[in-house]
């Protein structure tokens, strides 16, 4: 066996044996011959591994003898990098510097207000905002301030601050590559200056629109600007509105004329009154009439309302009451216009 193990390189951890000295004396031409020879040699090698394996100390199990394999000697690369240690958080650094040590606190605390044992944190906890009926006034209290609201605001601030700290620590960990496996840091859009919160998520289309607008917001319409690498040209190059040529001519030139002619023909036609939807006109007239009535009834109240709704310029020139009446009159005029149509 000694000679065998020297002859072969055996890695029991991987159950592998290698014979570096094997060479065919004469390469067999026949495939079957080759296979046979290989299997024969393979059996020898496997036997060599088995010699070592079956002589390892084993424990008897229901399913068979179990041996403890030595670790593999053939070095194979890892699949992923070694887990990196998490960098200490800012608080941990501070605590270490100051010599602050964590001491265990009980999970439940006696609540004097209700006289029961309650959780320290979480749902139905001790000293919950909901359970505080009275807050005693202090000398430092500002008059006119709601202490309950203040408490809530303070709590919210503390939560926000903690969230900010957490993000900072995570960023630091991400830099080292030691982010916990289940956490991802995702970039969101920058908040627009002047607004309070960041917009949730900007779609690709929206971004393209904005980029296009920005790119064309020069006197030359962005024509002479340098393009960034990978930047595409704006989706809407040039004009949006199109006008038909006014000068007379054939083809395109006559189109404008045709269009206007079409409208005029409709108006001057024999049955032009059929264009008017009589039912609609009548209902419109009725509605206006009723509104007018209402205006007259609730003169005082409605006038102030209408005043608010109206642009300021007009109210400067005319009295509010008259303004409302004027409004009605103008409406009348418009309804009349419908009639004339």
């Amino acid at each position, binding site marked *: 066996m000694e000679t065998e193990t020297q002859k072969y390189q055996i890695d029991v*951890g*991987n*159950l*592998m*044996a*290698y*014979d*570096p000295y*094997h060479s065919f004396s004469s*390469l067999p031409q026949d*495939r079957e011959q*080759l*296979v046979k020879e*290989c*299997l024969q*040699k*393979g059996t020898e*090698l*496997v*036997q060599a*591994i*088995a010699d070592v*394996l*079956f*002589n390892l100390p084993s424990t008897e*199990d229901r*399913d*068979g*003898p*179990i*041996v*403890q*394999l030595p670790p*593999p000697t*053939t*070095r*194979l*690369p*890892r*699949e*992923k*990098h*070694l*887990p990196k240690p998490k960098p200490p958080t800012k608080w941990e650094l501070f605590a270490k510097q100051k010599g602050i040590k964590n001491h265990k606190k009980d999970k439940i605390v006696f609540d004097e207000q209700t006289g029961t044992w309650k959780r320290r944190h979480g749902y139905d906890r001790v000293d919950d905002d909901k359970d505080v009926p009275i807050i005693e006034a202090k000398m430092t209290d500002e008059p006119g301030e709601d202490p309950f609201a203040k408490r809530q605001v303070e709590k919210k601030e503390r939560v926000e601050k903690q969230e900010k700290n*957490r*993000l900072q620590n*995570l*960023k630091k960990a991400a830099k080292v590559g030691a982010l916990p*496996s*289940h*956490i*991802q*840091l*995702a*970039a*969101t*859009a*920058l*908040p627009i200056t002047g607004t309070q919160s*960041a917009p949730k998520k900007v779609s690709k289309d929206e971004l393209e629109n904005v980029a296009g607008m920005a790119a064309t917001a020069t006197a030359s319409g962005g024509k002479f600007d340098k393009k960034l690498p990978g930047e595409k040209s704006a989706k809407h190059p040039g004009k949006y509105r199109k006008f038909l040529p006014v000068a007379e001519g054939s083809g395109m030139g006559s189109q404008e004329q045709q269009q206007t002619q079409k409208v005029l023909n409709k108006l001057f036609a024999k049955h032009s009154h059929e264009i008017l939807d009589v039912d609609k006109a009548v209902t419109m007239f009725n509605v206006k009439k009723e509104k007018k009535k209402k205006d007259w009834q609730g003169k005082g109240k409605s006038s102030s309302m209408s005043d608010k709704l109206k642009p300021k310029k007009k109210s400067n020139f005319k009295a509010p009451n008259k303004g409302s009446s004027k409004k009605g009159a103008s409406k009348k005029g418009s309804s009349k216009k419908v009639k004339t149509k």
Partner: protein
Amino acid sequence: MLTVKTPKTKKAKRALDKRAPKLVENLKKTLLLHGTKTSNVLNAVLTEIYHLKKGSAIKYSRKNESVRPFESGGETSLEFFSLKTDCSLFVFGSHSKKRPNNLVIGRTYDHHIYDLVEVGVENFKTMESFSYDKKLAPLVGTKPFFAFMGEGFENVEELKHLKEVLLDLFRGEVVENLNIAGLDRVYVCTAVSSNRVFFTHCALRLKRSGIVVPRMELVEVGPSMDFVVRRHRLPNDSLKKEAMKTTTGKPKKKEKNVSRDVIQGKIGKIYIPDQQVGGMALSNDAKGLKRERREAKLKNGVNEHKSKKQKADTE
């Protein structure tokens, strides 16, 4: 601005934790895929490798246009697949005039290509073409033996590389405790010439020999094929150094409920749940019984009572 994204469910968290880098790594998974064109032989090779590696392999059945492992830019989607499926070994089949029946076996480190070996498949024989006693057929997921022979595996760089990759591909789980009775397969690889390797898969038969070590007998069960080495790419040294890093120490398991005292020595804590006296099981509402049967039992009891009374009446 950064936002913290965390999984919404425990299941998702567990799934992510499974994929995280670990001190003692999971079993390497294999991704099997092919390019725009494959041959019958290659399809068979890929499916048979899939069968050999069942349980730790994923097979893609669609064409992959953009996968060209050796070309720059051609590895992008491969790396993406590796990330998506959490596979760190891949076998990519492609067939072209220049390189017929081409198989690229590669490994990834941190979901980036680590090394590549390209081999051509020749003289392929499928599993079905072998006839043997089916009782000998190796079970799924058993730990295989490896027998490498030929000086080529030491002298020729390509073959040396191929040996390592084949070992990584087929070795299965790295285990500490091994049931010897469960050993039933051998991979035999022979370096026939400086660029040709004969590869075959055999079943193992343990025969009595009179001593502790049984006599081994190999029965070829297939697949068997010749690998003709074409191109290969070794990892660069810094990457290799990084990937070969290991730790000697095992991760320590946290000791719970045990404390030590100067006077009392080692103290263990045991938690016993409160005894629920109020909800103690009574013979009548045994949970094992079905509801109908339980009700029937109750009814019968009442009936018996009645009948007894009646009897008394008649008497």
